[in-house]
């Protein structure tokens, strides 16, 4: 499974409902096919799961709230 190592410190609270902490490798390209391989109940409070995978729930929430361009900018892509 694709793992992300280096982290971009972009922690912020997007709403009271779910806190999304953006900490993801700047140069890593997200592989959406990996969503299928995630833990069955991923932690939705961080963009990375405990095992270092992209937390797609948090990613989609961030895209919905801030737009894909802003998220891509924050990811350094």
């Amino acid at each position: 499974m694709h793992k992300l190592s280096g982290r971009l410190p972009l922690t912020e609270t997007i709403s009271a409902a779910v806190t999304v902490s953006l900490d993801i490798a700047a140069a890593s390209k997200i592989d959406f096919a990996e969503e299928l391989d995630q833990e069955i109940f991923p932690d939705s409070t961080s963009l990375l799961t405990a095992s270092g995978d992209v937390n797609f729930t948090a990613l989609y929430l961030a895209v919905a709230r801030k737009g894909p361009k802003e998220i891509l900018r924050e990811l350094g892509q």
Partner: protein
Amino acid sequence: MKAGHQVVVIGGGIAGLAAAYVLQKDGFDTEILEASHRVGGRVLTAREPFARGLYGELGAMRLPANHEIVNEYLRELGLDDQLEPFEQANQLIYLTGLKRTITYNAFEDLLRQKDPSVLNLFPGLHDHEKGKTLDELWTEAMAPAVGMNATQIRQNYDRHTLQSYLEEVAGWSSACIQLYEYCSAHVVLENAFEESFADAYLSSEQQGTAARMRQLKGGLDRLAWAFLQQKDVDLAARIRFGARVRHVVYDRSAVETPIRITFESVAGHSVTKQADYIVFTVPCPAMTTIRVSPPFRAGKTSAINQVRYVEVTKILAQFRTRWWEKLLNQKYNAGSEGGLVTDLPIRYLMFPHSASSQFAPPQARGVVMASYTFEREAARLGVLSEADKLRLVRENLKEIFEEDLIDDTIEVSVSHNWSNDVYAGGAAFAYFSPHQHTRLYNDLLSPDWDGRACFAGEHASAYHGWIEGALRSGLRAAFQVSEHFLI
């Protein structure tokens, strides 16, 4: 804004609306081409031919509380205070061999007691399968997979159908599978047992009994229309209804707007549009009716052609009075709402929550999901005329409840056989066959035409058959468009 920002979205279902909504908000110039006269796709709320104020769902109907992206858009669209419980607990069961309707609790007692009136209906049950409820049998059967993550589930079991898993891994007898097939109402798991075990298991784990089910007051299509009602985005002005896309061409040599889309209007004229990006959000079978030049890469084309969809038929029936509320309570001491499972052709019936907004007081009428069927059973019901469907519902209900009040109260019905839905391409929802997780998934998600064509829809998500999957796929496609745009 640099050049290259015109996006055409094919399909005004939930995935298309989500993609267009987020792209438009993000500065793209977006247009949705929808072949039908409405938004929502496989969200289909029926208000006709029912009495004013009554409605039912012919497509998607449930919103699990743990679906975070659905929750996000309910908040965004101002609908998060419009939810109500969706009643799905099994209350009653009627088996033709048993010749009587009993509560589901009583049925489970008969199973525990190894009562011959039930066990004799399923000759061939192994001794270790006797004396257990369906939930207990299911829990035992799933034990080898419990604790595995999704990757391990796929690695170990993606070759299995649900049936072959139950037979070869869990050791179920054919009789036990028949018992489960006719007596359980796990609607996600009973698609003729031909679906991929991995898809069935993962869907069940993510959206199973632990997920509190809700429905949207006033009908689930309100969610789709709410996307159009957001004034700051104004998707209402950016959607064309009755626009059937026939041909899409990608010109690699073009410097600007390399995508050319030709669609036919209902009025019969042909229109061509240019765009920088295109997002296909219609179900795969519907996508095959669109000619694309050049063809998509082989893996993409193969995935579109092969992905397996489930057949579904639903019948909604209106009754002059909500007789079931009194009957369930007084005759069966089973509350006033909930599900009924039967081996009769209607197979599964749902009496709505007594406080549901589906009712329109002060009138006493009510609409019931009188039949919910899958696969071969759905195909058999799907070919019946509306009158024959209503007749079948009436005859089955009379056999189940032995009450004259069925004849006295039944009024009208409406049904939908998704196999005959031309806009959906005959697709109800995707459910992979064995190996399709491994072989097709990446091709379903990934862009084509040098990143100019992106793809969304519940089939291209980890949540098959759920609005959550449609929303996620729309956001993912929007992300992929933006990713290409910013490079």
